[in-house]
Protein backbone atom coordinates (compact mmCIF):
# COMPACT_ATOMS: atom_id res chain seq x y z
CA UNK A 1 0.00 0.00 0.00
CA UNK A 2 1.26 3.49 -0.81
CA UNK A 3 1.82 6.09 1.87
CA UNK A 4 -1.40 7.84 2.87
CA UNK A 5 -1.09 11.57 2.28
CA UNK A 6 -2.94 13.69 4.80
CA UNK A 7 -5.46 16.12 3.32
CA UNK A 8 -3.97 19.62 3.41
CA UNK A 9 -7.32 21.35 3.91
CA UNK A 10 -8.31 20.22 7.43
CA UNK A 11 -6.95 22.00 10.53
CA UNK A 12 -4.07 23.97 9.00
CA UNK A 13 -1.00 24.01 11.29
CA UNK A 14 0.28 27.42 12.41
CA UNK A 15 3.53 27.28 10.43
CA UNK A 16 4.30 26.08 6.92
CA UNK A 17 5.57 22.58 7.69
CA UNK A 18 8.14 20.42 6.03
CA UNK A 19 6.50 17.18 4.93
CA UNK A 20 7.76 14.07 6.73
CA UNK A 21 10.85 12.55 5.11
CA UNK A 22 12.45 9.17 5.90
CA UNK A 23 15.47 10.89 7.51
CA UNK A 24 13.26 13.27 9.45
CA UNK A 25 11.11 10.41 10.74
CA UNK A 26 14.15 8.42 11.83
CA UNK A 27 15.60 11.48 13.56
CA UNK A 28 12.29 12.19 15.33
CA UNK A 29 12.12 8.75 16.92
CA UNK A 30 15.82 8.63 17.87
CA UNK A 31 15.19 11.96 19.61
CA UNK A 32 12.08 10.64 21.37
CA UNK A 33 14.07 7.64 22.64
CA UNK A 34 16.87 9.88 23.95
CA UNK A 35 14.59 12.21 25.91
CA UNK A 36 12.44 9.30 27.04
CA UNK A 37 14.80 7.88 29.65
CA UNK A 38 12.59 6.83 32.54
CA UNK A 39 9.40 6.61 30.52
CA UNK A 40 6.81 8.98 29.14
CA UNK A 41 7.54 8.02 25.53
CA UNK A 42 3.99 8.62 24.23
CA UNK A 43 4.03 12.17 25.64
CA UNK A 44 7.39 12.90 24.00
CA UNK A 45 6.18 11.39 20.71
CA UNK A 46 3.07 13.57 20.75
CA UNK A 47 5.08 16.73 21.38
CA UNK A 48 7.60 15.95 18.62
CA UNK A 49 4.82 15.26 16.10
CA UNK A 50 2.65 18.27 16.84
CA UNK A 51 5.54 20.76 16.87
CA UNK A 52 6.51 19.52 13.39
CA UNK A 53 2.89 19.73 12.30
CA UNK A 54 2.96 16.12 11.09
CA UNK A 55 -0.09 15.08 13.08
CA UNK A 56 -2.97 16.76 14.87
CA UNK A 57 -3.86 15.95 18.48
CA UNK A 58 -6.94 14.05 17.34
CA UNK A 59 -4.92 11.91 14.93
CA UNK A 60 -2.41 11.22 17.67
CA UNK A 61 -5.13 10.22 20.16
CA UNK A 62 -6.53 7.80 17.58
CA UNK A 63 -3.12 6.17 17.07
CA UNK A 64 -2.53 6.05 20.84
CA UNK A 65 -5.83 4.27 21.53
CA UNK A 66 -5.05 1.74 18.84
CA UNK A 67 -1.57 1.16 20.27
CA UNK A 68 -3.19 0.24 23.60
CA UNK A 69 -5.32 -2.37 21.89
CA UNK A 70 -2.60 -4.18 19.96
CA UNK A 71 -0.36 -6.64 21.81
CA UNK A 72 3.23 -5.73 22.53
CA UNK A 73 5.12 -2.79 23.99
CA UNK A 74 2.96 0.33 23.55
CA UNK A 75 5.68 2.85 22.75
CA UNK A 76 7.10 0.70 19.94
CA UNK A 77 3.65 -0.13 18.57
CA UNK A 78 2.83 3.57 18.57
CA UNK A 79 6.03 4.31 16.63
CA UNK A 80 5.17 1.62 14.06
CA UNK A 81 1.66 3.03 13.62
CA UNK A 82 2.78 6.63 13.24
CA UNK A 83 5.51 5.59 10.81
CA UNK A 84 2.97 3.60 8.78
CA UNK A 85 0.52 6.49 8.74
CA UNK A 86 3.09 9.07 7.64
CA UNK A 87 5.27 7.09 5.24
CA UNK A 88 3.79 3.61 4.75
CA UNK A 89 5.53 0.33 5.51
CA UNK A 90 9.05 1.72 5.17
CA UNK A 91 8.10 4.51 7.57
CA UNK A 92 6.94 1.96 10.13
CA UNK A 93 10.28 0.15 9.92
CA UNK A 94 12.26 3.40 10.23
CA UNK A 95 10.25 4.55 13.25
CA UNK A 96 10.79 1.25 15.08
CA UNK A 97 14.52 1.21 14.29
CA UNK A 98 14.77 4.83 15.44
CA UNK A 99 13.05 4.34 18.78
CA UNK A 100 15.00 1.16 19.58
CA UNK A 101 18.54 2.02 18.48
CA UNK A 102 19.80 4.32 21.29
CA UNK A 103 18.55 2.00 24.04
CA UNK A 104 19.81 -1.07 22.24
CA UNK A 105 23.35 0.31 22.08
CA UNK A 106 23.22 1.33 25.76
CA UNK A 107 21.66 -1.94 26.91
CA UNK A 108 24.13 -4.12 24.99
CA UNK A 109 27.07 -2.17 26.38
CA UNK A 110 25.87 -2.58 29.96
CA UNK A 111 24.84 -6.20 29.38
CA UNK A 112 28.20 -7.26 28.00
CA UNK A 113 29.86 -5.61 30.99
CA UNK A 114 27.55 -7.04 33.68
CA UNK A 115 26.98 -10.54 32.26
CA UNK A 116 30.41 -11.02 30.74
CA UNK A 117 32.39 -10.73 33.96
CA UNK A 118 34.04 -13.97 35.05
CA UNK A 119 32.93 -14.91 38.56
CA UNK A 120 29.80 -12.78 38.44
CA UNK A 121 29.16 -9.20 39.45
CA UNK A 122 31.19 -7.34 42.09
CA UNK A 123 29.05 -7.21 45.23
CA UNK A 124 28.78 -3.43 45.16
CA UNK A 125 27.33 -3.49 41.64
CA UNK A 126 24.91 -6.28 42.55
CA UNK A 127 23.76 -4.31 45.61
CA UNK A 128 23.25 -1.26 43.42
CA UNK A 129 21.19 -3.29 40.96
CA UNK A 130 19.08 -4.62 43.85
CA UNK A 131 18.35 -1.06 44.93
CA UNK A 132 17.49 -0.11 41.35
CA UNK A 133 15.16 -3.11 41.05
CA UNK A 134 13.25 -1.99 44.15
CA UNK A 135 12.79 1.48 42.64
CA UNK A 136 11.74 -0.13 39.34
CA UNK A 137 8.94 -1.81 41.27
CA UNK A 138 7.72 1.66 42.24
CA UNK A 139 7.91 2.72 38.58
CA UNK A 140 5.88 -0.33 37.59
CA UNK A 141 3.21 0.50 40.18
CA UNK A 142 2.80 4.06 38.89
CA UNK A 143 2.57 2.75 35.33
CA UNK A 144 -0.19 0.37 36.47
CA UNK A 145 -2.27 3.07 38.20
CA UNK A 146 -3.84 4.67 35.09
CA UNK A 147 -4.86 1.25 33.76
CA UNK A 148 -6.33 0.31 37.16
CA UNK A 149 -8.23 3.60 37.26
CA UNK A 150 -9.78 3.08 33.81
CA UNK A 151 -10.58 -0.53 34.70
CA UNK A 152 -12.37 0.62 37.88
CA UNK A 153 -14.77 2.56 35.64
CA UNK A 154 -15.71 -0.47 33.54
CA UNK A 155 -18.70 -2.59 34.55
CA UNK A 156 -17.35 -5.81 36.16
CA UNK A 157 -13.85 -4.46 35.40
CA UNK A 158 -12.45 -4.77 38.97
CA UNK A 159 -13.91 -8.28 39.35
CA UNK A 160 -12.40 -9.51 36.10
CA UNK A 161 -9.06 -7.86 36.93
CA UNK A 162 -8.89 -9.57 40.33
CA UNK A 163 -9.83 -12.94 38.80
CA UNK A 164 -7.11 -12.48 36.15
CA UNK A 165 -4.59 -11.57 38.86
CA UNK A 166 -5.46 -14.62 40.97
CA UNK A 167 -5.36 -17.00 38.00
CA UNK A 168 -1.98 -15.72 36.81
CA UNK A 169 -0.14 -14.91 40.04
CA UNK A 170 -1.51 -17.54 42.42
CA UNK A 171 -2.67 -20.44 40.28
CA UNK A 172 0.00 -19.82 37.58
CA UNK A 173 -2.56 -20.56 34.87
CA UNK A 174 -1.66 -20.45 31.17
CA UNK A 175 -1.87 -16.87 29.96
CA UNK A 176 -3.55 -17.55 26.62
CA UNK A 177 -6.32 -19.53 28.32
CA UNK A 178 -6.88 -16.70 30.82
CA UNK A 179 -6.85 -14.16 27.98
CA UNK A 180 -9.39 -16.15 25.96
CA UNK A 181 -11.64 -16.64 29.00
CA UNK A 182 -11.52 -12.99 30.11
CA UNK A 183 -12.15 -11.64 26.62
CA UNK A 184 -15.08 -13.99 25.95
CA UNK A 185 -16.71 -13.13 29.30
CA UNK A 186 -15.98 -9.42 28.74
CA UNK A 187 -17.42 -9.45 25.22
CA UNK A 188 -20.60 -11.14 26.45
CA UNK A 189 -20.95 -8.65 29.32
CA UNK A 190 -20.32 -5.66 27.05
CA UNK A 191 -21.94 -6.85 23.81
CA UNK A 192 -23.23 -3.97 21.66
CA UNK A 193 -26.91 -3.20 22.15
CA UNK A 194 -28.99 -4.06 19.11
CA UNK A 195 -30.70 -1.10 17.48
CA UNK A 196 -27.75 1.25 17.90
Amino acid sequence: MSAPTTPAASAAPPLPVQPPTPTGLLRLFVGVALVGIGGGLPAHTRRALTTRGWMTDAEFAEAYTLAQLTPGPNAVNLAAMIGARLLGGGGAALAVVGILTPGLIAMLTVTVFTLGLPGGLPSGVQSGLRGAACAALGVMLTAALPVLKVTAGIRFGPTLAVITFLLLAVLRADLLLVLAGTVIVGLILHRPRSGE
Partner: protein
Amino acid sequence: MTADPLDILLTFARLGLVSFGGANLPEIERVLVEQKHWITPQLLANGFALGQVMPGPNMLAMTHYGFAAGGWLGAFAATLGFYGPTALLSAAAMTTWQRLSRWRWLPSLRSALLPFGAGVLLAGVLVLARGSIHSPAGALIAAVSFALLWRTRVNAALIVVGAAVLGAVLSL
Protein backbone atom coordinates in the same frame (compact mmCIF):
# COMPACT_ATOMS: atom_id res chain seq x y z
CA MET B 1 25.02 -23.10 28.02
CA THR B 2 23.79 -21.38 24.88
CA ALA B 3 20.23 -21.69 23.68
CA ASP B 4 19.25 -22.16 20.05
CA PRO B 5 18.74 -18.71 18.41
CA LEU B 6 15.63 -19.89 16.56
CA ASP B 7 14.14 -21.10 19.85
CA ILE B 8 14.94 -17.70 21.38
CA LEU B 9 13.38 -15.86 18.43
CA LEU B 10 10.14 -17.84 18.59
CA THR B 11 9.90 -17.76 22.38
CA PHE B 12 10.32 -13.98 22.54
CA ALA B 13 7.95 -13.48 19.59
CA ARG B 14 5.28 -15.33 21.56
CA LEU B 15 6.04 -13.23 24.67
CA GLY B 16 5.63 -10.02 22.67
CA LEU B 17 2.35 -11.13 21.16
CA VAL B 18 0.80 -11.99 24.54
CA SER B 19 1.77 -8.66 26.14
CA PHE B 20 -1.03 -6.12 26.41
CA GLY B 21 -0.50 -2.61 27.71
CA GLY B 22 3.23 -3.08 28.21
CA ALA B 23 5.24 -5.87 29.78
CA ASN B 24 3.79 -9.22 30.62
CA LEU B 25 6.07 -10.11 33.50
CA PRO B 26 4.17 -13.13 34.87
CA GLU B 27 4.42 -14.91 31.52
CA ILE B 28 8.01 -13.77 30.97
CA GLU B 29 8.94 -15.26 34.36
CA ARG B 30 7.00 -18.47 33.77
CA VAL B 31 8.61 -19.12 30.39
CA LEU B 32 12.16 -17.76 30.76
CA VAL B 33 12.82 -18.71 34.39
CA GLU B 34 10.67 -21.73 35.17
CA GLN B 35 10.24 -23.44 31.81
CA LYS B 36 13.39 -22.67 29.80
CA HIS B 37 15.80 -21.92 32.68
CA TRP B 38 17.48 -19.26 30.55
CA ILE B 39 17.58 -16.67 33.33
CA THR B 40 17.32 -16.54 37.13
CA PRO B 41 14.75 -14.46 39.11
CA GLN B 42 17.64 -12.20 40.07
CA LEU B 43 18.58 -11.61 36.43
CA LEU B 44 14.93 -10.94 35.61
CA ALA B 45 14.83 -8.18 38.23
CA ASN B 46 18.27 -6.83 37.21
CA GLY B 47 17.29 -6.58 33.54
CA PHE B 48 14.02 -4.88 34.38
CA ALA B 49 15.84 -2.32 36.53
CA LEU B 50 18.43 -1.67 33.79
CA GLY B 51 15.60 -1.11 31.31
CA GLN B 52 14.32 1.77 33.43
CA VAL B 53 17.52 3.79 32.97
CA MET B 54 17.98 3.11 29.25
CA PRO B 55 16.85 5.58 26.59
CA GLY B 56 13.67 4.41 24.87
CA PRO B 57 11.24 1.64 25.70
CA ASN B 58 11.63 0.07 29.15
CA MET B 59 11.30 -3.46 27.88
CA LEU B 60 14.77 -3.41 26.34
CA ALA B 61 15.29 -5.80 29.25
CA MET B 62 14.44 -8.39 26.58
CA THR B 63 17.82 -7.75 24.95
CA HIS B 64 19.47 -8.39 28.33
CA TYR B 65 17.58 -11.68 28.79
CA GLY B 66 18.37 -12.73 25.21
CA PHE B 67 22.07 -12.13 25.77
CA ALA B 68 21.97 -14.22 28.95
CA ALA B 69 20.24 -17.03 27.04
CA GLY B 70 22.40 -17.06 23.92
CA GLY B 71 25.09 -14.39 23.73
CA TRP B 72 25.14 -11.78 20.94
CA LEU B 73 23.01 -13.83 18.59
CA GLY B 74 20.57 -14.46 21.43
CA ALA B 75 20.32 -10.75 22.20
CA PHE B 76 19.59 -10.05 18.53
CA ALA B 77 17.04 -12.88 18.25
CA ALA B 78 15.24 -11.80 21.45
CA THR B 79 15.02 -8.16 20.37
CA LEU B 80 13.83 -8.99 16.86
CA GLY B 81 11.36 -11.57 18.14
CA PHE B 82 9.87 -9.40 20.88
CA TYR B 83 9.46 -6.19 18.86
CA GLY B 84 9.23 -7.33 15.22
CA PRO B 85 5.90 -9.19 15.00
CA THR B 86 3.98 -6.76 17.22
CA ALA B 87 5.32 -3.78 15.25
CA LEU B 88 4.22 -5.43 11.99
CA LEU B 89 0.80 -6.10 13.48
CA SER B 90 0.53 -2.48 14.65
CA ALA B 91 1.44 -1.06 11.25
CA ALA B 92 -1.15 -3.33 9.64
CA ALA B 93 -3.78 -2.36 12.22
CA MET B 94 -3.15 1.33 11.52
CA THR B 95 -3.88 0.93 7.83
CA THR B 96 -7.25 -0.72 8.56
CA TRP B 97 -8.14 1.57 11.47
CA GLN B 98 -10.66 3.69 9.53
CA ARG B 99 -12.79 0.63 8.97
CA LEU B 100 -12.22 -0.68 12.50
CA SER B 101 -13.31 2.57 14.14
CA ARG B 102 -16.85 2.04 12.85
CA TRP B 103 -16.94 -1.56 14.05
CA ARG B 104 -19.62 -1.84 16.75
CA TRP B 105 -17.74 -4.51 18.70
CA LEU B 106 -14.66 -2.31 19.17
CA PRO B 107 -15.80 -0.64 22.45
CA SER B 108 -16.84 -4.10 23.71
CA LEU B 109 -13.41 -5.48 22.91
CA ARG B 110 -11.76 -2.58 24.72
CA SER B 111 -13.93 -3.13 27.83
CA ALA B 112 -13.04 -6.82 27.72
CA LEU B 113 -9.29 -6.34 27.27
CA LEU B 114 -8.67 -3.61 29.86
CA PRO B 115 -9.54 -5.67 32.99
CA PHE B 116 -7.30 -8.43 31.65
CA GLY B 117 -4.49 -5.91 31.21
CA ALA B 118 -5.00 -4.65 34.77
CA GLY B 119 -4.85 -8.18 36.16
CA VAL B 120 -1.63 -8.87 34.24
CA LEU B 121 -0.08 -5.66 35.58
CA LEU B 122 -0.97 -6.57 39.17
CA ALA B 123 0.48 -10.05 38.74
CA GLY B 124 3.59 -8.41 37.26
CA VAL B 125 4.01 -6.25 40.35
CA LEU B 126 3.93 -9.39 42.49
CA VAL B 127 6.47 -11.20 40.29
CA LEU B 128 8.82 -8.24 40.36
CA ALA B 129 8.44 -7.80 44.13
CA ARG B 130 9.42 -11.43 44.71
CA GLY B 131 12.50 -10.99 42.51
CA SER B 132 13.71 -7.67 43.88
CA ILE B 133 12.71 -7.21 47.53
CA HIS B 134 14.89 -9.23 49.87
CA SER B 135 14.97 -6.92 52.91
CA PRO B 136 12.95 -4.26 54.81
CA ALA B 137 15.30 -1.62 53.35
CA GLY B 138 14.41 -2.83 49.85
CA ALA B 139 10.69 -2.61 50.61
CA LEU B 140 11.22 0.91 51.92
CA ILE B 141 13.08 1.95 48.73
CA ALA B 142 10.21 0.59 46.62
CA ALA B 143 7.60 2.42 48.72
CA VAL B 144 9.47 5.74 48.71
CA SER B 145 10.11 5.50 44.94
CA PHE B 146 6.43 4.89 44.34
CA ALA B 147 5.40 7.81 46.57
CA LEU B 148 7.88 10.17 44.86
CA LEU B 149 6.75 9.16 41.36
CA TRP B 150 3.10 9.38 42.29
CA ARG B 151 3.22 12.72 44.08
CA THR B 152 5.98 14.62 42.22
CA ARG B 153 7.16 14.97 38.65
CA VAL B 154 10.69 13.67 39.22
CA ASN B 155 12.15 11.74 36.28
CA ALA B 156 11.84 7.99 36.86
CA ALA B 157 15.40 7.36 35.64
CA LEU B 158 16.75 9.70 38.32
CA ILE B 159 14.89 7.80 41.03
CA VAL B 160 16.17 4.44 39.79
CA VAL B 161 19.76 5.73 39.64
CA GLY B 162 19.37 7.20 43.14
CA ALA B 163 18.08 3.88 44.43
CA ALA B 164 21.04 2.11 42.82
CA VAL B 165 23.47 4.37 44.69
CA LEU B 166 21.50 3.81 47.91
CA GLY B 167 21.52 0.07 47.33
CA ALA B 168 25.29 0.03 46.82
CA VAL B 169 25.84 2.12 49.97
CA LEU B 170 23.52 -0.01 52.11
CA SER B 171 24.84 -3.18 50.39
CA LEU B 172 21.37 -4.68 50.07
